[in-house]
């Protein structure tokens, strides 16, 4: 364990050097990260005005506050691992990583944390512009300190589950369809497409059962004080549960996956 932690400063240095090399690609990625929450901020604000001022008890200023926080929390909790894992196997990059005396997941953690922290430089002005354009209403929330705790837990849950889904690439090279379905479910049930209180029919109980709400909109709603104490405790319990499930899947499936893996590449 201490040996793993001792490797992290070096892993961060590698992550930063790579990011500086590919800084323009990183910036282009950020366009999508910023634009999507802004689109839904606008869509829901227009919907609220069309429905006579508010929908589900939220008016345009509430949606502005909600989606500005979704922008931040989604940036801090997303990962790109499902998109690239297939290429690691196809082009043999994984062979090199397996030669190291360190689980490849640690470089991914370092890459993600470094990317998130550095790109807060982009997030900050985007939020400032949103503040000016959309006039969000941020209430004084009793549960705000809990959001700070829920955020790293949300990242851990989403990262471990993303990594679990990425492991599918060991069994098939057509992971794109799997990823699309995974993202579609995440998109509807995480609070990105809509605050989950606004979801119709079975989608709302589904969102409460799946991990994505707890990884994304749960910290947001904590920061906005929209939850009761009972819901707060339930949320934290679900976060712990899903972090455990993710860790369990990775530790067990990883061994089976490596037994299947035949090195490709140079």
């Amino acid at each position, binding site marked *: 364990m201490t040996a793993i932690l001792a490797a992290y400063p070096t892993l961060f240095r590698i992550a930063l050097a790579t990011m500086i090399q590919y800084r*323009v*690609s990183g910036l*282009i*990625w950020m*366009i*999508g990260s910023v*634009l*999507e929450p*802004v*689109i839904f901020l*606008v*869509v*829901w604000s*227009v*919907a*609220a005005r*069309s*429905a006579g001022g508010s*929908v*589900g008890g939220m008016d345009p200023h509430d949606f502005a506050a909600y989606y500005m926080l979704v922008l931040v929390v989604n940036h801090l909790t997303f990962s790109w691992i499902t998109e690239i894992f297939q290429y690691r196997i196809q082009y043999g990059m994984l062979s090199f990583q397996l030669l190291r005396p360190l689980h490849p997941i640690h470089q991914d953690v370092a890459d993600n944390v470094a990317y998130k922290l550095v790109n807060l430089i982009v997030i900050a002005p985007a939020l400032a512009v949103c503040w000016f*354009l959309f006039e969000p209403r941020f209430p004084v929330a009793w549960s705000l300190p809990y959001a700070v705790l829920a955020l790293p837990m949300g990242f851990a849950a989403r990262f471990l589950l993303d990594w679990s889904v990425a492991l599918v690439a060991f069994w098939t090279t*057509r992971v*794109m*369809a799997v990823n*699309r*379905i995974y993202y*579609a479910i995440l*998109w*509807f049930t995480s609070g990105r*497409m*809509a605050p989950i209180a*606004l*979801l*119709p029919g079975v*989608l709302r109980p589904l969102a409460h059962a799946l991990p994505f709400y707890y990884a994304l909109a749960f910290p947001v709603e904590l920061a906005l004080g929209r939850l009761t104490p009972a819901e707060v405790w339930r949320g934290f319990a679900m976060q712990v549960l899903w972090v455990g499930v993710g860790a369990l899947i990775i530790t067990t499936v990883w061994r089976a996956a490596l037994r299947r893996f035949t090195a490709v590449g140079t």
Partner: protein
Amino acid sequence: MAWLRLFAVFTRIGALNELAYRVNFAVQALESVVAASTVLGAVAVVFSQTDRLGDWQVWELVALIGVYFLVLGMINLVLAPSMAKFMEDVQQGTLDFTLTKPEDAQVLVSVSQVQVWKVIDILVGVGLLAVAIHRLGDTLGVLEASAFVVTLLAGAAIVYSLWIMLATLTFWFIRIENILMVFWNVYIAGRWPVTIYPGWLRLLLTVVVPIAFAVTVPAEAISGRLSALTLLSSVGLAVVMLIVSRWFWRFGLKRYSGASA
């Protein structure tokens, strides 16, 4: 109409290649269905809370999403793969083989790769349009239908010109394929009518990445809210951008020095 003949030839080659991998058809069909359900699901969620979005009703939005998939399919069928191949050719110097062929080089690089299975997105788009038009009732007269076809073609020409200009930048910058990611990152905004966005964003989506003309304007034509001014500016912009992109392509091509340089 040399490009139509070449497009037919390359489509046949693309089809012959892909018919060897028939499972890809099922995979692509699954992906298209998931993508379409996601976008339609978002509309359903929004309309579970309100019965109109700005001045758009639900079936008008379905028509817009139909156009969105139609344009998406057209880009992915031929434009995106051909431009990717073209940029790779410039990097590696293999554009020589294209330039020595006795056809117009811009036409050749524009249609050289055809991913036939992407036609499913086009079919999904047409299907959604058909359902939406049926549900909207008898508002679609000959006038609206022809306005739709004209604005869709103009939108396609605008998107094509933008892509060929972005790709032409590769003559100067070599590794520029990421610039096309800007287009994809912004294209998701086209799932909603640009008229609902605030002014600065609408301007961005009209002028910088012109998805307003590619998606929203044809959808406006179907719901019969297209103004003559919008129709004229769409056609005008298409003509101007085709001419400018043609000139820019020739200008860029002069920079190309080939594999042996």
